[in-house]
């Protein structure tokens, strides 16, 4: 979760620091634009060495930190543990 928060800080272009966001908080309401969402996806792919399949490329998958973690976990169960 901390790594996800770091990446959000770097690429999410949010007005608030990611550490202040609850895992279930809506990132779009927090200011995530569709441009930044794509940049965030690309950064997550790079950081966790994963590739998001088409079925995950939607608003919902990237709407909260918890959702992002669930997607990453599904694609690479060990990625978040390390």
């Amino acid at each position, binding site marked *: 979760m901390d790594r996800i928060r770091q990446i959000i800080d770097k690429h999410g272009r*949010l*007005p608030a620091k990611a550490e202040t966001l609850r895992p279930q908080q809506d990132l*779009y*309401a*927090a*200011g*995530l*634009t*569709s*441009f930044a969402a*794509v*940049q965030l*996806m*690309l950064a997550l792919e790079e950081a966790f060495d994963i590739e*998001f399949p*088409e*079925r995950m*490329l*939607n*608003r*919902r998958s990237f709407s909260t930190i918890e959702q992002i973690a669930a997607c990453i976990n599904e694609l690479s169960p060990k990625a978040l543990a390390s």
Partner: protein
Amino acid sequence: MTSLQDRAALVAAVAAQYTEQVDRDGRFPTEALRAMKEHRLLSAFIPKEFGGEGAALADIADVVSILSQSCGSTGMVYAMHQIKTSSLVTHGGASAWHRAFMERICDEQLLLGSATTEGGGIGGNLRNSICAVERKGERFSLEKVGALISYGIQSDAILITARSGPDAPPSDQVMAVFTKDQYTLEQTMKWDALGMRGTCSDGFTFRGEGDAAQIFPNDFGDIAAKSMLPICHILWSAVWYGVAYAAFARAQNFVRAEARRTPNVVPPGALRVAEAANMLQLMKSNTTAAIHRFEKAEQGGEDLGSVGFIVAMNNVKIGASRMACDVINHAMLITGINGYRNDTPYSVGRHMRDAMSAPIMISNDRIFGNMSNLLLMHRIEPSLVA
């Protein structure tokens, strides 16, 4: 009641009578609107339970195209009204206020306008707002500066976007309905444009106050993805198809008249007619494929919020807007001086000017810019038929 298309044809006949005057004087197509109300076209998209007809998107698009063949501005006014209606139909069912408002649209044949565009550098950047709703108990107020609102003066209600509150970031938006008695429009710009002159897309400062219940319960991001973006692009494409078709028909008549005058000789314009017919078919497939994809997605076949769907719906707009201009350019080359003049049965100047609004109505470059970002992630579906 006669079919929607039959009634649309009656309204189109009225629109055709006034289209030249509407264009020349840059005035609203009042007679066509009156005919739409008389034939209850404004409530066609609303479900039967609220007093509408529950028409399918395909039928609404057909009506848009029929009207646009007579008068581009009339077709665009009807299309924009239905785009706003679609947001009520898709998202308003959960709220008592919006359900009652849908009944009012049917009973009173209300015309809905749209205020998404904003000054201060927002322009057509739909998913960002500067202005914000201010809630005070059960009430709320909103002021939007630099709003470009087609038929703002003639609208009976306006659907408007804003930030969800004074502290919300620009992309955290809501949409609200205001009825005519709840707002003032201070005109800041008069619409004197190249084409679509009858849409009367004047600039205003909008100031409104209403019940907080008039704000849609779900956020605007959701509304934009699920109803506004796809239906807007589909119905705009239907307008441009109608306008392009009308210019094409004039060019074809021109060539046919020539062929009758000089039998056994294929007129020089005939080849271009064939070429234009090809483009017209691409325009038609582009739009009808989008309608089918949207209808399938709505029934759960595809995620309306997926990147793939958004890319496809943006491509519909770009394709249709570019091709409309190409078809009409062909029509102009075919009809020559007769098409260029404003006073012949083959005139296509109005069609060309109307269609030239298509690539700039939410700039194609802006849309390409958004899509170039999405295509860093999304892979285009390899299957031809899926």
